[in-house]
């Protein structure tokens, strides 16, 4: 084996390379965990916009009622499959960044069946809400996030801090790829059953024919008298908040990468100074500066690769544990793999390598072996 191979240097100088390896490993781990969690939270929140792949909500702009003619026009549009009368009902969902409202789809029984079918959701446990009752069925993620079980009641009548007037009761748990909640339209629309009914604004769920949601949305957005809440709007609501946080953490990550690269370059420079005799004698006995640069570059590359691999393994391990122990039991279905954090973490060894390489190259160019040999001699 070549005595000047990076592997020989690495395994014989563990104590020397350990500080750099530890720093790099730690930073890679940090970048992976933080950015994967943030990217995951963003993706897991975007899950709640999936229902808008199938339908769009339409609200009145100035009045509490929608113009009848417009509802007829929407129903008659070639991209529309069905228009469902609905009302506003929501539950508070506990998220990592505080309570957020989650809208339920108020509909009649046959329409509830239809909506669930469109988003591949099904009843997992309990029952669907009976018409004219304050019963609701919620997706399992919402139930997990709030730590609820069937029979749980919510609303201002139950808890003054709640946001939804009245009293509602969970009677069923739904499952499927799209988080959804359903309740009775007949109940919310009847002032005799639900005292706040008159105050609730009208809304319709405009369900598109499969694959034609874009066409339907274009039509709805062209209408002056209504507000439209579609996929774009729902995604914007989620992304805006998260992108600001991700931007901040990306900035922190980039700063970390630059600082750590500088530290690694500095450490490399110190190691270089410690090994100056070695380089001087190798140059004197006929090794070229190019060969020495390749040797040191290889040693650094080995160190960077090792640190990145270790940091990646530790980061993913920690993230998997955080996801399994903290997030999933709380109904936050965060995905495990994210390309972004991996790419950002990869920038760390690459930038550090370039920085370290430049430092060594600069010093190697100036080195005079005779001067060093005479000084030590």
């Amino acid at each position, binding site marked *: 084996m*070549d005595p000047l191979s990076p592997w*020989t240097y690495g395994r014989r100088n563990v104590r020397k390379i350990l500080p750099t390896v530890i720093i790099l490993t730690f930073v890679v781990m940090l970048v992976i965990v933080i950015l994967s969690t943030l990217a995951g939270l963003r993706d897991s929140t975007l899950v709640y916009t999936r229902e808008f792949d199938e339908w769009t909500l339409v609200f009145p702009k100035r009045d509490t009622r929608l113009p009848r003619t417009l509802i007829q026009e929407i129903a008659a549009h070639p991209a529309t499959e069905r228009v469902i009368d609905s009302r506003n009902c929501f539950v508070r969902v506990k998220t990592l960044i505080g309570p957020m409202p989650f809208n339920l789809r108020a509909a009649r029984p046959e329409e509830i069946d239809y909506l669930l079918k469109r988003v591949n959701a099904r009843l997992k446990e309990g029952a669907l809400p009976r018409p004219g009752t304050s019963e609701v069925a919620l997706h399992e993620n919402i139930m997990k996030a709030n730590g609820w079980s069937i029979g749980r009641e919510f609303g201002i009548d139950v808890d003054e801090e709640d946001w939804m007037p009245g009293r509602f009761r969970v009677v069923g748990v739904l499952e499927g790829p799209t988080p959804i909640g359903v309740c009775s339209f007949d109940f919310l629309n009847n002032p005799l059953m639900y005292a706040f009914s008159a105050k609730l604004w009208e809304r319709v769920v405009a369900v598109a024919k499969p694959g034609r949601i874009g066409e339907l949305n274009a039509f709805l957005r062209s209408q002056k008298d209504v507000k439209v809440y579609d996929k774009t709007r729902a995604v914007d609501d989620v992304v805006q908040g998260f992108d600001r946080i991700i931007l901040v953490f990306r900035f922190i990550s980039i700063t970390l990468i630059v600082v750590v690269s500088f530290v690694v370059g500095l450490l490399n420079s110190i190691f270089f100074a410690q090994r100056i*005799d070695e380089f001087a004698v190798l140059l004197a006995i*006929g090794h070229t500066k190019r060969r020495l640069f390749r040797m040191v570059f290889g040693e650094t590359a080995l160190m960077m690769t090792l640190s990145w691999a270790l940091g990646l393994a530790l980061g993913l391990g920690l993230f998997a544990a955080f996801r399994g122990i903290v997030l999933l039991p709380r109904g936050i279905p965060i995905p495990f793999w994210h390309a972004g954090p991996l790419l950002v973490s990869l920038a760390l060894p690459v930038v550090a390598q370039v920085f370290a390489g430049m430092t060594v190259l600069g010093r190697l160019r100036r080195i005079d072996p005779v001067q060093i040999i005479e000084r030590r001699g």
Partner: protein
Amino acid sequence: MLLGHRLSLVYRDAANDVRAVDGVSLDVREGEFIGILGPSGSGKSSLLYLLAGLKQPTSGDVSFAGQVLGGLTQDALAEFRRKHFGFIFQNHFLINHLTSRENIATAGDADSAGLLEELRVAHCRDKFPWQMSAGEKQRVAIARAVVRQPKVIFADEPTASLDRPNADLAVECLRRVTRGGTLFVVTHDESILHGATRVLRMKAGRIED
């Protein structure tokens, strides 16, 4: 074989020019053993480094086997040194994380087992420098210098950091393993130049007559 023609080496020291080597010419034949003696600062090491191509002369040139060293690029000169020259310094300059065998292999991949035997350091084959005595380290450094059987060996005060018995042993070994190659030894200690074909005495950068 090795020719130094009107070699000068001038350093700039504060405001003054210091002539470390001053117009030295030298013609060395194959197999010669040249001793270079002189007090500190007389320019003997500088002359050695000029002849070895480790320093560029301010004026004059060095040629070996017809090749002018000054005409070579840095990389080509390094390769040339690696191929034809061997070096021994006052300090052993062994690499600490390599064993004796590996240190020798940094000069070339020739078999060093017999050489270590001959230099009486076979038992140090797999030892690291920090596990060896000063004498053993210097003999391993000699092995590194001669392992590729270079045409010329340059030794700069090879015994200066050794006690007398170790110095004698190192010189004896050096003479034995040089095997007909040209040997330059810079030293303060004239006693180690026993058997030299020529002894050059230097003073103020010049060879004294």
